């Protein structure tokens, strides 16, 4: 009975995506060839040695990120993904920025060849987005199969998300220096570290225990008798009242409400941030919609995965097709293999390492990475070693 409505929402979503990707681009960033041509030639720092072996993105003399290191780093990322989730995306970013030696190389061009500096920044952003986008695609598909994808809420989020995903690459591609990117990346690492830290506090832990106890208690109670007491008038989602400020609805007789502007603004900010930093917004959407917008988790998890997927598709499209950003594919290939290996190891080791100790480990890591990137980005030097 909902087929027609679902089709309408699906068509609306497709139109949104199409409209977003076909927005004509102005102010195109320089292509890789142009940026290399504009850079000063020579063997000094900040110059391109045309005689040297091609490295990252085929730039002569650039560091060639080792595929073996990329593979090993991705095992670590995959292990984190399969043990604590969201922090894996940050670690993928750390790999692209620091471990492969790209940040220091890119920074060398800040004054001599700003176009090349910014192109390297954009390439790092899009590399992260490919990894996040692929994972969001898989999760959206799984949620869809499970019937946990709520298209109307997805549309409200997608309106904001599409705007953020288009505007941010459009406004910032070719304009953000690697230094500023590092600083902002550092700040978001603090936010994620904060989330993880909360979960390790007595308050966060007791909430988790309470939830588990409540679920267990309900499971033991007389479920069938309770089902029979349902009133036909309570079935499904029923909107009780709505205005520009508040939508009140009941979901099987249980009351929920949200401000319709909130998902749109939230979608815009989160997708904009995710697009800017090249990370997924999933870890922000779920707490945002459950805590701030007050929506039930059932309506949130699948929908946020869909929103991240839509946002990433548009953002990657805008960077790569409209702005012509290049990425280094073999690195993504070995990273996928590494993530696969890491994700296989994760569930097997998590039996031996308590969840809370893993989170504490990642809080410490988040503090270190956050301090390093924020200070390097905004002050020009790191206050934690290596300086």
């Amino acid at each position, binding site marked *: 009975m909902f087929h027609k409505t679902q089709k309408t929402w699906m068509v609306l979503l497709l139109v949104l995506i199409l409209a977003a990707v*076909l927005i004509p681009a102005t102010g195109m960033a320089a*292509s890789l060839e142009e940026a290399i041509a504009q850079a000063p030639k020579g063997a000094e720092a900040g110059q391109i040695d045309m005689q040297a072996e091609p490295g990252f993105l*085929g730039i002569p003399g650039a560091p*060639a990120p*080792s*595929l073996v290191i990329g593979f090993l780093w991705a095992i670590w990322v*995959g292990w984190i*993904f*399969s043990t604590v*989730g969201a922090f894996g995306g940050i670690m993928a970013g750390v790999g692209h920025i620091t471990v492969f030696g790209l940040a220091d190389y890119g920074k060398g061009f800040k004054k001599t060849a700003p176009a090349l500096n910014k192109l390297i920044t954009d390439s790092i952003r899009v590399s992260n987005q490919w990894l996040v986008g*692929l994972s969001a695609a*898989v*999760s959206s598909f*799984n949620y869809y*199969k*499970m*019937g946990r994808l709520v298209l109307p809420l997805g549309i409200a989020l997608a309106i904001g998300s599409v705007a953020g995903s288009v505007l941010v690459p459009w406004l910032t591609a070719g304009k953000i220096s690697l230094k500023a990117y590092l600083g902002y990346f550092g700040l978001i690492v603090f936010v994620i570290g904060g989330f993880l830290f909360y979960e390790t506090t007595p308050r966060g832990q007791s909430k988790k225990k*309470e*939830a*588990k*106890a*409540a*679920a267990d*208690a*309900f499971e033991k109670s007389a*479920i069938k008798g*309770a*089902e029979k*007491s*349902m009133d*036909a008038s*309570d*079935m*499904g989602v029923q909107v009780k009242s709505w205005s520009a400020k508040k939508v009140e609805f009941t*979901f*099987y007789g*249980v009351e929920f409400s949200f401000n319709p502007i909130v998902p749109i603004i939230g979608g815009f900010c989160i997708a904009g941030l995710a697009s800017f930093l090249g990370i997924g917004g999933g870890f922000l959407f779920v707490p945002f919609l459950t805590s701030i917008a007050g929506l*039930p*988790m*059932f309506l949130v*998890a699948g929908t946020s995965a869909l929103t991240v997927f839509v946002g990433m598709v548009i953002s990657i*499209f805008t960077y*790569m*097709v409209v702005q012509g950003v*290049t990425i*280094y*594919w*073999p690195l*993504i*290939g*070995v*990273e*996928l*293999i590494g*993530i*696969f290996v890491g*994700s*296989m190891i*994760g*569930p097997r080791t998590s039996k031996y390492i308590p969840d809370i100790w893993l989170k504490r480990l990642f809080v410490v890591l988040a503090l270190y990475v956050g301090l390093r990137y924020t200070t390097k980005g905004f002050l020009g030097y790191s206050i934690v070693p290596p300086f």
Partner: protein
Amino acid sequence: MEWLYQVYLFLDGFLIAPYRIVEPPILGFYLGTGLLALYAVVLGALTSEAAIWANARNLEDQSHAMVRMHNLSFRALAAKNKKAFKAANHEANDAFGKYFFAWMANAAASLWPLAFALGWMQLRFQGVHFAFPGLPIDLGFAFLFLICYILASILFSKVKKRLPIFAKSVALSKMARDHADEMVTLADLQASK
């Protein structure tokens, strides 16, 4: 990275041949890219099959846990017990998270050839833009490859069911579908009334 370049050089003759079979060149491009996408899909499916052999039990356990908590959350909803619904729903999401990452491992196993195929195309077609019917802008090789990859995946999923080597993943997909059937839906709650 020299070794990777050598691997690409070794395969180049084989991969580029279909691009030169037919005229006009744009048709040859789509034929060659379509075949490349098919190779990537098949290679990915084989790796994924190996991963499923290694992880079948884990996946089954996680699937059971997820279905149980999902159904509990819906029953709590039916009982108008908001507190129990939120709690069970939270647990269901945790269970889903674990199940999801187990499948992520499989997805990564099946997607890796895609990136290496794009790496080869980057060596061949970097900077070239292609017309796509109905679109006002020309597209780069990556997006055209992705379109071919999606089509090849759909095509291969039809054939895969008949190939004995993929029996394990076909059985596991069936189990996932059966579990999806076992999941209480809003319609079921309505029907139970």
